[in-house]
């Protein structure tokens, strides 16, 4: 038996046990629905378009929040990393704000923004902002000064040095930041979508809870998990393409 197959054994056994326990009546269906019921719910909700619509709502919030938070973080991180004045002006307030748990801001954000779309997008943006800011800043600060100097002796202007030395040098750290931002963004979305409002996977789950449709709640969880997995995969593929120069480093 190959190692890959062996590693599949336990998950499959657990699934079978779960299904069996539900069918034997050991697991009450209103506490935890069997996998078959979850699959069936998936089929039903896909067919009537509910799942697709909710997914689209959630994705729109996630993308919007990530773009807003990420862009802001990138700009501020670059300003703080590249310019001494920027460092003095930008970094202290960001470091202070970082200490606030952003999910703890939900009550305040509800007062400011209500419970609509802007609350959810803001939460995702806040979650994505800090990892990207911190890693952009650290990536730029971690550049080997000797490489910058060598580029200077090759006649590169300040802007060209940023483009050819600083940005590519900070890219590995930036990628780490984006991956952490994705994770934080999804988490923020889950929390944000449970604060009432309309549409989205979270809304689907909250609604199902009211009608004790446990299988839909479990389905929502699964969808979140798959979304997280897919975004991580996409990011890793992008990383492999953009950071192909590191392959040589790893081999040697």
């Amino acid at each position, binding site marked *: 038996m190959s190692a890959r197959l062996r590693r599949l054994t336990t998950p499959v056994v657990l699934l079978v046990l779960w299904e069996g326990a539900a069918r034997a009546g050991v697991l009450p269906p209103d506490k935890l629905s069997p996998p078959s019921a979850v699959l069936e719910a998936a089929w039903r909700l896909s067919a009537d378009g509910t799942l697709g619509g909710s997914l689209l709502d959630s994705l729109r919030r996630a993308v919007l929040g990530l773009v807003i938070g990420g862009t802001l973080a990138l700009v501020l991180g670059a300003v703080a990393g590249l310019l001494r004045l920027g460092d003095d002006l930008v970094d202290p307030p960001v470091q202070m704000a970082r200490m606030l748990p952003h999910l703890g801001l939900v009550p305040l954000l509800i007062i400011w923004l209500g419970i609509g779309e802007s609350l959810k997008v803001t939460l995702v943006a806040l979650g994505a902002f800090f990892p990207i800011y911190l890693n952009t800043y650290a990536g730029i600060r971690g550049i080997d000064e000797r490489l910058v100097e060598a*580029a200077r*002796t*090759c006649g590169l202007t300040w802007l060209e040095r940023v483009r*050819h030395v600083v940005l590519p040098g900070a890219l590995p750290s930036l990628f780490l930041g984006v991956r952490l931002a994705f994770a934080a963004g999804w988490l923020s979305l889950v929390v944000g979508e449970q604060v009432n409002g309309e549409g989205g996977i979270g809304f689907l789950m909250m609604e199902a809870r009211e009608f004790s449709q446990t299988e839909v709640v479990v389905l929502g969880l699964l969808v979140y998990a798959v979304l997280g997995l897919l975004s991580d995969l996409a990011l890793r593929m992008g990383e492999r393409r953009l*950071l192909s*120069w590191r392959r*040589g*480093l790893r*081999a040697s």
Partner: protein
Amino acid sequence: MAARSSGLVVEAAGVRRSFGDTVVLDGVDLTIGHGEVVALLGASGSGKSTLLRILAGLDDEATGTVKVPESRAVVFQEHRLLPWKRVADNVALGVRSKDAASRTASALAEVGLADRGRAWPAELSGGQSQRVAIARALIREPELLLMDEPFGALDALNRLKMQALFGRLRALHGFAALLVTHDVDEAILLADRLMVLDGGHIIESIEVDLGRSRAVDTPGFATLRRKLLTLLRVPAEGVAWDAEELRGAPR
């Protein structure tokens, strides 16, 4: 290439540089003629690299007058290639002319790496990386080449090959060069003039008149070597492990 007027490529006078209270360069005067290779020797911490960095325009806090040509290039002890650019792109870095690609190819061919243009720096050996660094300097057709212990990080055999390569490239391009080194043999082999830096001053400037083709067994080499080592305050008696002789040797 335009005919070069005779005269000086580098004119530096009264160069001073201190780090805090430590004065590293205390009024250094230095000139380098067209096509002249000057080796700069000195103990560690004598300010050799500091002087080179000043000539390279990398030090803003030095005082004194420094006249260097606009067209100059630097080779550092470490290759300092950008790991995220392929070898050819590293060589062509900052070269803005239209024929950059063909110039890159010929620069790489000159250092014997014509077929490695597509490689990543991480795939090269130490000696190869340093050759690329030299190609990156030469593609700029510099009037002045500044080299900071360029072969110092290489093993002894590679160093010999690179010294021979330097001789060939020099004959080909006719650049003037300042070669910072702590290798006395290398200095005598490659330079037209030797300068010794000590206590913030140039304490000696020696013309090397051993001819254009020289080796460690060229007559006069050993004498010059001994003289240099004395200036650098290194005992030049050689190595002895004959117990009898050691006992009789003066301390």
